[in-house]
């Protein structure tokens, strides 16, 4: 593959440039706007494949770039990726065209604004994953909120306004304290070294006394836990998912939630290792509650999207458990499982969207026995379900297995963590297979379902792409794990070493 210079910068700003370009199109040129948006998103995806040349043997950030941004404060535009962010970037560039292509036939109002919002969102997501300057990271992190707010609020369902505002205020409430914490750290760095810097490396080198470290840790962790979302901060998620348009749900569940996981791994954990390790059992406890509670609530849902949304609470609880256990295996599994969840939940939301666009209801009761009329949709749904519940041969199994074995064997972690978490796998099979059964297999109850049409070509293509990715990870997991492992090991070694060092401000 040809190496593109400034690849990451291209990836970050190509979508935003595309969005700006779209605003020059006349509002009525709907087809052209859709095509242009998809072309930009696909071009970004193709470019992002160049990242696959990431070399896991080199345990450092790659594709790095650094430009001075606000020199007076040492703020730079520094980007780069490692094994933790690589797959998530690829997931982002995959899911954005998926969301846009799915929406071709379903979004009719203000298509230009819709497409531009997704492209700006993509810039925010890739920027968040690639930023290696904490100020830059914060800018991208917050920039994502505005397009998502618009996507839920303009193109969402009946209670979209409530959901959009709740989404915005919850996530903003989490991240504002992080903003103060970032400033505090920069000021401390300046006091200590006499220079201003917001760079990740410099922040990694700082260590704080336990009281301020705990406060700073909570300021960061809160921002990420809201995003993940960890029980009991999850209440915005079911509303946001239920009301968001399908494409919005795909991105929200597929990528945005993972940024919480990513942020925790990249910032909260290595910045404040003592505090993070001290609170790891609490984190694990909340994650376990999330797994069991999310699963049980999911089982009780009557709305398909709400069910999938609660399943996300459970699945991300498992991911956070893997991080709390902090073994090489469990953490690598957590990173991989983040990607897996993006693929399987993305596909589930997409297929729920397929049904919804035809019947205009997400009530499980309104369906039943529709497999006869929409066989392809049913098959794909089943595959996505299997992926989600961790059937061997598909991607979900690999991630869940790694997290569970890693947690079970973790030196500091009690055995029962993994045991309770395993119940989550069983529960997920219960509620998801029940869903499949009630929607697709039971006898036909509603005559109008007989006229359901099966999945369109455009919907099929994107769903097939997701299924292919699931198969790829499921059948050849080492291809992907190899990229992840090195960076995760480096991170864990760093965290362990730093937490053993005395807690004072270090150079």
């Amino acid at each position, binding site marked *: 593959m040809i190496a593109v210079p400034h690849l990451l910068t291209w990836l970050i700003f190509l979508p935003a440039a595309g969005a700006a370009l779209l605003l020059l199109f006349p509002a009525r040129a709907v087809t052209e706007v859709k095509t242009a948006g998809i072309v930009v998103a696909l071009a970004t995806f193709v470019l992002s494949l160049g990242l696959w040349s990431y070399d896991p043997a080199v345990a450092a950030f790659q594709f790095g770039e650094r430009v001075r941004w606000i020199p007076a404060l040492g703020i730079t535009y520094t980007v780069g990726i490692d094994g933790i962010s690589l797959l998530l970037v690829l997931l982002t560039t995959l899911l954005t065209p998926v969301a846009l292509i799915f929406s071709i036939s379903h979004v009719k109002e203000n298509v230009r604004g819709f497409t531009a919002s997704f492209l700006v969102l993509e810039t925010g997501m890739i920027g968040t994953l690639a930023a290696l300057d904490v100020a830059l990271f914060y800018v991208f992190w*917050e920039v994502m909120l505005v397009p998502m*707010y618009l996507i839920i609020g303009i193109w969402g369902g009946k209670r979209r306004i409530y959901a959009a*505002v709740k989404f*915005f205020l919850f996530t*903003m409430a989490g991240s504002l304290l992080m903003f*103060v914490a970032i400033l*505090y750290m920069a*000021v401390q760095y300046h006091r200590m070294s006499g220079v201003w810097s917001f760079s990740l490396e410099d922040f990694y080198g700082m260590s704080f006394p336990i009281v301020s470290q705990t406060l700073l840790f909570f300021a960061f962790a809160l921002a990420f836990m809201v995003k993940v979302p960890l029980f009991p901060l999850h209440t915005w998620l079911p509303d946001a998912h239920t009301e968001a348009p399908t494409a919005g749900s795909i991105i929200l569940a597929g990528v945005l939630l993972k940024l919480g996981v990513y942020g925790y791994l990249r910032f909260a954990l290595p910045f404040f290792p003592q505090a993070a390790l001290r609170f790891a059992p609490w984190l694990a406890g909340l994650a376990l509650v999330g797994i069991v509670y999310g699963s049980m609530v999911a089982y009780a849902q009557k709305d398909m999207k709400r069910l999938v949304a609660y399943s996300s609470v459970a699945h991300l609880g498992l991911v956070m458990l893997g991080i709390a256990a902090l073994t090489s295996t469990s953490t690598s599994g957590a990173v991989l499982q983040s990607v897996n969840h993006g693929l399987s939940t993305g596909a589930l939301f997409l297929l729920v969207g397929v049904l919804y666009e035809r019947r205009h209801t997400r009530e499980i009761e309104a369906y039943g026995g529709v497999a006869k009329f929409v066989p392809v949709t049913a098959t794909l749904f089943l595959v996505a379900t299997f992926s989600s519940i961790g059937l061997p041969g598909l991607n979900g199994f690999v991630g869940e297995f790694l997290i569970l074995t890693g947690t079970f064997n973790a030196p500091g972690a009690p055995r029962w963590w993994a045991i309770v978490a395993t119940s989550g796998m069983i529960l997920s099979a219960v509620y998801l297979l029940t869903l499949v059964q009630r929607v697709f297999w039971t006898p036909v109850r509603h005559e109008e379902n007989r006229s359901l049409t099966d999945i369109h070509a455009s919907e099929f293509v994107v769903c097939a792409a997701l299924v292919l990715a699931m198969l790829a990870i499921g059948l050849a997991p080492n291809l992907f794990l190899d990229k992840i492992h090195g960076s995760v090991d480096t991170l864990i070694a760093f965290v362990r070493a730093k937490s053993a060092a005395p807690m004072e401000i270090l150079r």
Partner: protein
Amino acid sequence: MIPGAYSLDVSAALPEIVVASAGCLLLLLEAFLPVARRTFAAISILAAGSYMVLLERIPGSDAFAGSFDGSILARTFGLFLGLAAVLTLLVARPYLERAVAAGLIASDGEFYPLLLWGMVGISLMARGLDLLVIFLGLETFSLCFYILAAYFKSSEASSEAGLKYFLTGAFASSFTLFGIAWIYGKTGSISIARFADAHVGADPLLAAGLVFLLSGFAFKIALAPFHSWAPDVYAGMPTPAVAFLSVAPKGAALVVLFRVFAGVFDGVVPGRFRAALAAIAILSMIVGNLVALAQRDVKRLLAYSGIAHMGYVAIGLAVFGRDALAAVLLYLFAYALTNIGAFAAVAALYRDERESHPVGLLAGMGTRSPLAAGVLALCMISLGGIPATAGFIGKFFVFKAAIEKDLVWLAVVGVLNSLVSLGYYLRVVYVLYMREPVEDELPAPLAPESRLALVLCGLGVLGLGIFPARLWQIVQAASRALPSLRP
């Protein structure tokens, strides 16, 4: 007096002289040779533009026996003032023409001279190194804006605005003057530079004088608890005049407070004073943001939002020091672009100036008037302090200054307040884009000047939000112009 020094003084005041003369010229034109309003607007913009250019060429030293500042602080403030004036004038022309057509006023000719003279007053305030020059500037600008507030003679709301602004303003001015008298009595001087020589920093009489002075200026800045005039005045006053009033005089008053405190306290604000300033900042943020949540009129909403924003700025005042002044100046630039952008959109989106400006009328404007609605939404996001906009940069530097002086809790109060503020800013975005239009009639097409003002504000908000480095350098240099201010 030496003749050479005299001409030096005149060249120092040349920017103000040009603007004031342009105002006189316009008044004469209006009386004897009424020409097209475009020409009026053009002459005014030219005057405001040449104000900025001439300021760059003034001698860098003090003039008029040390009572008139020529430093980079004055030039930087002039940049801010000229920017605010040009943007306001762009918005004013189409707005006033509509008001004349609607019969709200017989003629709009006096608007331009009043605005220009107001600008001269504000410039005097910010450049004054002597409490009397400052007071002269304060009164000049106040007088012009009393008239501008009541400019729509046939509108009750505007008359009410004029009366309220006049009564409270006169009251505030008397406080200021009273404070000046006490300070003079204690230090024996009206020149700020001499205050430090008097060595009376902790004297209770002086403190009382400063409190009076602070109260008077807090009225002009609309800081709680001196804010009660703002909502009614904003609601009734012609929109372009509010746009200017909400930004420029507040900036000048802040510069004056920095100058006086730096002079009296020799750079270090005593703890009790800092506590009082912090209390005012917190009160302004909380009152402004909470009451704004309940507002249904967009101009009243912007009035309360302005109170809250001056609360954030007052954090900078409480923090004090060079970086705090630089942060405040940067915040003022960001606030000017954002707030004038918001008012420009409000001026463009509401058709009937006789009525109030309910937020609900903005419904559906996102598709009907995409440019104005887009800029309004962007400005709301910027006022809410979301990154990649100017508003975020302003808050970033102010909070950073607070944390540097170990006032982390003040920054925490600040960010929590900006969370509250998003409640009402997002409501405007929601109405613009997520509600069906309530009126059948389409909004009037935008005049080219409005378009230009909106685009400039929108680009400015994004530009400053993404590339703040250059402006930060400028304001940092400006903050060094106050010699007694410590880093």
